[in-house]
C-alpha cells in the first residue's frame, strides 16, 4: 500500500517537469520577437535588447529553459511589464481568492450533484427524476460565462438578492458573511456544469449498484432501506463519483476564470483575462503554470483518496 502511494507520488514528478516544459515553450510560440511583443510596439530597440539579454533569448533553448527553471524554483515567476511588478506579488493573493471560489464551487457541485443523482436513482422514472435529469442534460451544455451572466441578471440586477460584483462590499466590508454573500452567484455559476455531470453519473452508478446481488442479500437480511441505500449503495458507488469529481476540478478551475471575469472576482482567472487582453504574456504564462501545478497536485490527492475509500482498489493493489 505504502509502495503504491510512494509510486503514485513519484509519478507526478515527470508530469510536473513536462508541465514546466510546455509552459516554457508557450512564450517561444509568440509570433515574431517575444521581447518585442512583451514590451509592446512603442518599446525602444535598446529596451528590447535589454529584455532579450535578461530573458536569455540569444542563448540556446536549453539554457533558456535552465535559467527560467532556476528562477521558478526560487519562486520567481517573472516580471510583468504591464503591471510593473513581479508577477508572484500579483498572483499569490489572487490565488487564495480563486481557491475560495473553486472550493465553494466544488462543494456545491459535489453535494448537490450527488444528492440529486441519488434521489433520482432511488425514485427512478418519477417526475423529479425526469425533470432533474432533463435539466442536467441541458445544464452540461451551457457555457459558464453565459450561466454567470444570466444568474447575474436574474439574481443581482432583477431581484437584487446578491451583489453584482466583487468579493467584499467596497463601502462597508463585512467580513465572512459579506464574503459569502458575494460568493453565492460566482460559485453557482462555476458549479452548474459539473453539478449536472456529477448528478448524471451518480444516478447511473447508483442504478448499477442497486442491481448487484449483494444489495439483494442485504434486503433479505432485513436491513432497512435507508441503511442499505445510504451506507452500502453509496459506499460502493463512491469510486466513480470521486473519479469524476476529480476530473471536474479541472473544469471548475477553467470555468472559474469566466465567473471571475463576469463577477469581477479578484482571482487568478480575472488577472489572466486582463493579461490576455493586454498582451501581458509573462503573466499569462505564470498564471497557467500556477493553475496547472495546483491541478496536478489535486489529481494526486483525488487518486489517493480513491484508493483509500475503495476496498476493491486496495485489493487489486495488494494483488500486484
Amino acid at each position: 500500500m505504502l509502495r503504491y502511494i510512494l509510486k503514485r507520488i513519484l509519478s507526478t514528478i515527470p508530469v510536473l517537469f513536462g508541465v514546466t516544459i510546455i509552459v516554457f515553450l508557450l512564450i517561444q510560440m509568440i509570433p515574431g520577437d517575444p521581447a518585442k511583443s512583451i514590451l509592446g510596439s512603442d518599446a525602444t530597440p535598446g529596451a528590447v535588447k535589454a529584455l532579450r539579454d535578461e530573458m536569455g533569448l540569444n542563448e540556446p533553448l536549453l539554457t533558456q529553459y535552465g535559467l527560467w527553471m532556476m528562477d521558478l524554483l526560487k519562486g520567481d515567476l517573472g516580471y510583468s511589464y504591464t503591471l510593473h511588478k513581479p508577477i508572484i506579488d500579483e498572483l499569490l493573493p489572487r490565488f487564495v481568492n480563486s481557491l475560495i471560489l473553486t472550493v465553494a464551487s466544488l462543494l456545491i457541485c459535489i453535494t448537490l450533484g450527488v444528492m440529486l443523482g441519488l434521489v433520482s436513482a432511488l425514485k427512478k422514472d418519477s417526475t423529479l427524476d425526469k425533470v432533474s435529469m432533463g435539466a442536467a442534460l441541458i445544464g452540461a451544455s451551457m457555457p459558464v460565462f453565459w450561466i454567470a451572466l444570466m444568474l447575474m441578471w436574474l439574481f443581482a440586477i432583477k431581484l437584487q438578492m446578491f451583489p453584482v460584483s466583487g468579493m467584499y462590499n467596497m463601502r462597508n466590508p463585512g467580513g465572512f458573511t459579506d464574503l459569502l454573500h458575494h460568493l453565492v452567484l460566482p460559485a453557482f455559476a462555476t458549479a452548474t456544469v459539473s453539478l449536472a455531470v456529477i448528478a448524471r453519473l451518480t444516478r447511473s452508478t447508483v442504478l448499477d449498484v442497486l442491481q448487484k446481488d449483494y444489495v439483494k442479500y442485504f434486503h433479505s437480511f432485513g436491513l432497512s432501506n435507508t441503511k442499505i441505500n445510504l451506507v452500502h449503495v453509496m459506499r460502493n458507488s463512491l469510486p466513480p463519483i470521486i473519479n469524476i469529481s476529480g476530473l471536474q476540478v479541472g473544469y471548475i478551475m477553467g470555468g472559474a476564470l469566466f465567473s471571475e471575469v463576469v463577477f469581477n472576482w479578484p482571482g487568478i482567472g480575472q488577472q489572466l483575462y486582463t493579461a490576455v487582453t493586454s498582451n501581458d504574456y509573462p503573466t499569462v504564462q505564470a498564471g497557467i503554470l500556477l493553475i496547472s501545478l495546483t491541478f496536478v497536485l489535486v489529481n494526486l490527492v483525488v487518486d489517493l483518496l480513491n484508493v483509500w475509500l475503495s476496498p476493491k482498489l486496495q485489493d487489486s493493489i495488494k494483488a500486484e
Partner: protein
Amino acid sequence: MAEKWKLSCKAFLSDKMAAIGAAIILLAVFLAIFANFVAPYDPNTVAEGSTRLLPPGTDGHIFGTDQQGRDILSRIIFGTQTSLISAVVPVIIAAVVSIALGIIAGYYQGFIGSLIMRLMDIFFAFPAVLLAIAIAAILGPGLLNVIIAMIIVRIPYMTRVVYTDVLQESQKEYVEAAKAFGIGDLETMFKQILPNVLPSLIAYATTLAGVTIVTVAGLSFIGLGVQPPTADWGRMASDGSKVLMQGYPHVTFIPGIAILILSFAFSMIGDGLRNALDPYEQSKMKAKKKVKAEKTAGVGVGQTAKEG
C-alpha cells in the same frame, strides 16, 4: 460486420434524442450554407438610434436588435457558420492526428507507446479551457488560432480513447492472424485495426464537437476567436453583457441559447452513437427483431396447423 452496422443504424435511428440532435445539426448546416438567402437582414448593418435594442417580438425583428441596431436573428443565422467550423474542423483534425498517435502507441506499445502516452499525460495536467486560452492568447486573436488551440487541446483526449481501444483490439485473434499471414505492420494497423476502433472514436468525437462549441464560445467571450464585425455567438453574448445592466438581457440570452442548442445537439448524437455501438443495446435490438420474427413465424405455423 454488415449485420453489426445494420443493428447500429437501427439502434441509432430508434433513439429519439439522437434523431432530434441530427435534425438540429442539419438545420444549422442548412442555415450556415444559405445564410445569405435565409437571413432577413444583413448581419453587420448598423442602424440609427431608434431601432437599437429593440426587444424580441418586435415587428420585423423577431429576436430584437442589439445595441448597434443589428438584427439578432440574422446574426444568429450567420453565426452558425463560425460555430460549425470551430466545432467540427478542430475535432476532425485532432481525430486524424490522434488516430495516428493512438494506433502507433497501442500497436507497438513498449518505448514508443509509453513515450507518446506519457506526453499526452502532461497535457492532461492542464485544465483544457485554460490551455486553449493560453495558446490562443499567445498566437493572437483570430479564428485560425482558436482552431489551432482547440486541436492541441483535444488531441490528448482522443489519443487516449484510440489507444485504449487499440490495446484491446491488439489482443484479438484477427490481429494475430494478420501477423501470421505476414501482413505488414502498417496494413495491420490501418486496414485491420482502424475500422474496429473508428466507430467509438466517431461517437466520442461527436460529443467533443459539442464541448468544443462551448469552449470556443468562451474564448470568443474573452476576446480571442473571431474578430468583429463577423457574427459569432460567443462574441454576441459578450457584447450583450455590456447592456445587461441597463435591462436588455435578450442581447446576451439569445446567442447563449443558440450555443446551448447546438452543443446539446452534438452531445445527443454522440450519446446516440455510443449507445448504438454498445453490444448490449444491439442485443436488445436483436431480441426485438427475434420476437418479431417469432411472432410472424408463429402466425405462419398456426395457419398451416389450421390448414392441416
